[in-house]
């Protein structure tokens, strides 16, 4: 008999052992009492690292590779355990033995020094799961944003957006809102690239040449899509009632509104994967690791969102 899907565990990966990851994972575990929506929470990584942060040993799924936690002092010797924690968690989720992954932050510079070929979690998870394309969404209780372009210089943004990339990203996002967020008829708003969404071509032509045709193509496929909207007036409460997710053209356009509205409880969600994956939207914060100052709210929000997504998928 397979176990009930609604009782599959949610896995919290260790992340960089020298950063705030293990401590916020354990704090979230404690605050939630080791369970959420009837699902057990499991920590995956080096047991001693988690236990040193206050976790009960029985809550840990141990990696074969070992790691040593010295807060604030990353060590490349820990890379193997950090990577194995993610890979094992993905493997369990792919086999249907875990409901979701919540990943604690890693440090890409530390991992890349050891030959890790991926610039971050998202690319690694995409490769492990064989997903054709993954989309990053940032979400809180009050706002969801997807940056179309992410880690590229602002000067390269206008040349990097295309009708095809907008349509593809929007469709992955809308499908995920249906499947993982239980929104039957999701509505997507496209942010303009230029100030005032280009003011009919007076301040840039991308809205006319790229954004509007992409929106029309999406509408023709039956999706509810509005825009391009001026990005300085589309994020206040009243405006947000008109859409479920905002597709932004660049990093700051997406990150600034969610950080302004939800600085402490923003969650990073990867859409388009066969598995559910969320993470807190902060980094390793080496400067405060081990001091007890790390705020677990974003990690708690990430666990809650992962559980809600897993429940939506199980229904």
């Amino acid at each position: 008999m397979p176990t009930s899907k609604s009782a599959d565990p949610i896995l919290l990966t260790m992340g960089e052992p020298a950063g705030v990851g293990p401590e916020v994972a354990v704090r979230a575990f404690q605050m939630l009492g080791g369970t959420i929506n009837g699902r057990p929470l499991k920590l995956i990584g080096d047991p001693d690292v988690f236990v040193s942060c206050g976790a009960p040993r029985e809550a840990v799924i141990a990696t074969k590779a070992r790691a040593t936690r010295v807060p604030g002092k990353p060590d490349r010797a820990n890379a193997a355990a950090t990577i194995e924690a993610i890979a094992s968690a993905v493997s369990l989720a792919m086999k249907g033995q875990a409901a979701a992954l919540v990943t604690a932050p890693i440090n890409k510079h530390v991992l890349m020094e050891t030959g890790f070929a991926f610039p971050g979690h998202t690319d690694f998870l995409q490769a492990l799961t064989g997903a054709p394309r993954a989309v990053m969404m940032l979400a809180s209780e009050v706002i969801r944003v997807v940056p179309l372009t992410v880690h590229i210089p602002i000067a390269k943004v206008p040349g990097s957006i295309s009708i095809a990339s907008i349509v593809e990203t929007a469709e992955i996002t809308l499908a995920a809102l249906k499947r993982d967020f239980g929104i039957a008829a999701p509505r997507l708003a496209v942010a303009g690239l230029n100030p005032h969404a280009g003011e009919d071509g007076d301040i840039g032509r991308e809205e006319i040449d790229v954004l509007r045709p992409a929106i029309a193509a999406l509408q023709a496929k039956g999706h509810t899509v509005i825009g391009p909207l001026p990005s300085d007036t589309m994020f206040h409460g009243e405006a947000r009632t008109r859409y479920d997710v905002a597709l932004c053209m660049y990093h700051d356009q997406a990150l600034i509104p969610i950080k302004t509205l939800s600085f402490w409880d923003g969650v990073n969600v990867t859409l388009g994967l066969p598995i559910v994956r969320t993470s807190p939207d902060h980094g390793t914060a080496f400067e405060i690791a081990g001091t007890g100052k790390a705020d677990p709210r974003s990690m708690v929000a990430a666990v809650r969102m992962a559980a809600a997504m897993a429940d939506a998928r199980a229904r």
Partner: protein
Amino acid sequence: MVNRIGLTMGDPAGIGPEVICKALKDMSAAERAATLVIADPVFMARASALVGADLDFVTTDAAVEAGKVADGGVPLLPVEANNRDAILPGQLSADAGEVGCRIIKTAVELALAKKIDVICTAALNKTAIRMAGYALNGHAGLLSHFTGVKKCYAVLACPQLSVIHVTTHVALSKAAGLCRTELILDTIRAAHRHVLTTGVARPRVAVAAINPHAGEAGLYGTEDQEQVVPAVEAACAEGILATGPIPGDVVFEQAIDGKFDIVVAQFHDQGHIPAKLIGRHETVNITAGLPILRTSVDQGTAFDIAWKGVARPGNMKAAIAMARRMRPV
């Protein structure tokens, strides 16, 4: 000392006259006496009646000292429209644009002559300005033109956050190339001087990064190292408390948290998104880098609701409150 603000009517076909009258209605007698409305008296009387303000406009010369008007009266310097009958509620017209521009010219002259301390403006319509024969872009264009200044800077301010912009109404594809050391440095200086006018003795100026994560050591672009860092260093060498580049998704939260008095944003939306989100109806416009002080509503002429008496005065009141706080330095 109470500073005297010059309140300009804006486009008379828009919501300017009525929001001004609503704001005046709620002022104390002393505040009214320290206000000079620069407007067409006929439109102001109509607006006063429309909103039930029953204001006593005292037509006056700008030289009249505060306090000389009758108790509760509102000093008004008349600048009359050439053809009032051609100006209709909610209708775009050259006549409305023309009188709006002439009012700004008058206000600038009064401010330059130090007969008023700050100008606070109601909205003009960019198209009406062009129809009136001015090849200038909005208020900022008019103010630069009338004061003979080449470059001025848009500030958005609310109680929690002030933001100044290196670039504003240019396509993003061009903006990135415009954010160069010299212009960033000039914007930092304008930010510093602006904060001084609000009574802060040692302004702390944060500079937002151009690229995500401030370029992440060159991984996401070199502009922050090449353009922003030298500007911040030069500003510090001049004695300005400048910090940056700080990533865009971090710096505004730090300023809202009280760490900085103003943020230098590189692009229109980088600064406008947080300023409008956090301040909502309290966010006002300020033009920095002029030889005069100027605040403004952060709204348009709203022709669709003009002269129906429904326009809300909150933003006008916030712009007036900001003007009251500012002092020439």
